[in-house]
């Protein structure tokens, strides 16, 4: 079990990690003063590619997966559909990714906030009190029991220039950036892409290790 965790790290070599750590320390002195996207993203680039980050993420991922498995095994008599299980795994993976982002980015906060909002609304649902008008909104939204969708405007019909339109589309893809301004979306997208790449790498290696391990169970 633990070897799985360790073997997830190999994809990023130690030398690159050291190089990036040095780069990060040299960048940080400039980055501490400046707040441009350049310095931020170079720092974040080093962050998401470092071994340390990958190790942190993979450990969190494994814990989340164990929890999911335990939840699913405990909760249901009839096994949930593969889709639901897959979805649960995916959400757990996304949450683990957001947690390892340490709340610095919009999308990570949005992922975590969505989860909390859903939980909150699910708890609110049995207590449907309509006395307070403010509560009605909560009740109504909880009845929907789904995330508030970003308004999918008919961007094709509007006379928005091409670039802006595509940036809006990109903003819808990145969680939490549906209604942000263009430079914010681009910045979030850079961090999100790096995080996704790390997630894909980690999950790939995890799947491979698990499947290889499962294919030949140890003699007991």
């Amino acid at each position: 079990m633990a070897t799985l965790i360790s073997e997830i790290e190999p994809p990023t070599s130690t030398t690159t990690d050291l190089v990036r750590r040095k780069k990060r320390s040299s960048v940080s002195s400039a980055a501490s003063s400046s707040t441009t996207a350049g310095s931020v993203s170079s720092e974040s680039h080093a962050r998401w590619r470092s071994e340390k980050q990958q190790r942190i993420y993979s450990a969190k991922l494994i814990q989340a997966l164990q929890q999911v498995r335990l939840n699913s095994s405990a909760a249901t008599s009839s096994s949930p559909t593969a889709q639901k299980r897959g979805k649960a795994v995916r959400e757990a993976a996304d949450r683990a990714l957001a947690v390892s982002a340490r709340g610095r980015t919009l999308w990570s906060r949005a992922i975590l906030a969505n989860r909390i909002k859903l939980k909150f609304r699910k708890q609110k649902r049995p207590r449907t009190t309509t006395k307070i008008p403010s509560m009605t909104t909560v009740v109504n939204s909880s009845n929907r029991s789904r995330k508030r969708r970003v308004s999918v405007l008919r961007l094709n019909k509007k006379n928005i220039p091409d670039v802006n339109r595509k940036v809006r589309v990109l903003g819808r893809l990145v969680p939490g950036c549906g209604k942000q301004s263009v430079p914010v979306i681009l910045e979030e997208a850079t961090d999100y892409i790096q995080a996704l790449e790390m997630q894909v790498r980690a999950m790939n290696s995890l799947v491979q290790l698990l499947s290889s391990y499962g294919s030949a169970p140890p003699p007991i």
Partner: protein
Amino acid sequence: MENELFMNAGVSHPPVMTSPSSSSAMLKWVSMETQPVDPSLSRNLFWEKSTEQSIFDSALSSLVSSPTPSNSNFSVGGVGGENVIMRELIGKLGNIGDIYGITASNGNSCYATPMSSPPPGSMMETKTTTPMAELSGDPGFAERAARFSCFGSRSFNSRTNSPFPINNEPPITTNEKMPRVSSSPVFKPLASQVPAGESSGEFSRKRKTKSKQNSPSTVSSSKEIEEKEDSDPKRCKKSEENGDKTKSIDPYKDYIHVRARRGQATDSHSLAERVRREKISERMKLLQDLVPGCNKVTGKALMLDEIINYVQSLQRQVEFLSMKLSSVNTRLDFNMDALLSKDIFPSSNNLMHHQQVLQLDSSAETLLGDHHNKNLQLNPDISSNNVINPLETSETRSFISHLPTLAHFTDSISQYSTFSEDDLHSIIHMGFAQNRLQELNQGSSNQVPSHMKAEL
């Protein structure tokens, strides 16, 4: 590269040099270093007309090759601003422009005037004292220098309402290298431009005292000045280098101050628009580096298409992998629990303690990172412990047999193969908390999910 310059300069400078990517100041010092430290020569560097200016400009232009936006993002914002200020001043003022640029941009910069805060380096002293000695002959210079030292000293509040009656000044010494300072009226915008330029560095201090009213007026006035400068005769041969804009984003400030480029519109709207476009293009460049295959594509729209496709493909990959993981998970349900119990069970004996001690000595990262050393260290331990726990050894052996089959990880896996599983289990959990490890050791698997829930 800048760090080397910093080292080579060999002079300890005040806060300017905190930012490793410092500007022309550093290169200037280096160029000074390479030449014999001769007061006359230093003077020549500043005030000789033809050659030294070109040296200075070439030094600056070599710096200009480094990305200009980053120039402005210094902790001491003035340095970055001064890079462009210097160039502009060279072009516009010639000799005395250099002096003014140097004297005006004091305090934070190397070129501290003798009238302002004392320059830190000995070189600076030789440089600056000699200029003063030479220029004292200029009748109006002391006056002007005094006024410019006011600029440099941060007591200076408004640029447009400059208290000094510059118009009354005698004309600047006739110097062919000062095409724009032939008349005193021109000098006024120039004088106010110097502070306009260098105030980009001083904003952090002035901003707090200035009201917001002043700042838009000063910003707009600086842009008007730019207009005047741009409309000036094109004798200025340094105008090309002045084409770069300064953009200092100071953390204390609300405004981003931009210098209009030569030949471009200077109203506030277009400047703001340009700032916005620069920001966006900067971020697009970063994205381009990230997304594979974006290098061949030119144009923002196509690049964005690629980026959108890439993000979608990544998300689809994650979904697919999560499906796969869930299927693998269900198959391995019993296996995982058995593994966990195995991890937990032998940990209660001395084996785990030995390994804990061993791993506490070396940090987890170095342990995992430095494969070879740790392999040698742990090998004897594991071999000795293998006798104690046959379950573990069988597990590791089976695992070892599988590891080489994985194509990706053969290098590192062979190094990890000597580790037993709960070694690494303890390593990983060490990373989180010591108490968690103990809980895992003691408790049953039922305790584990509760703690995980608490964390999540």
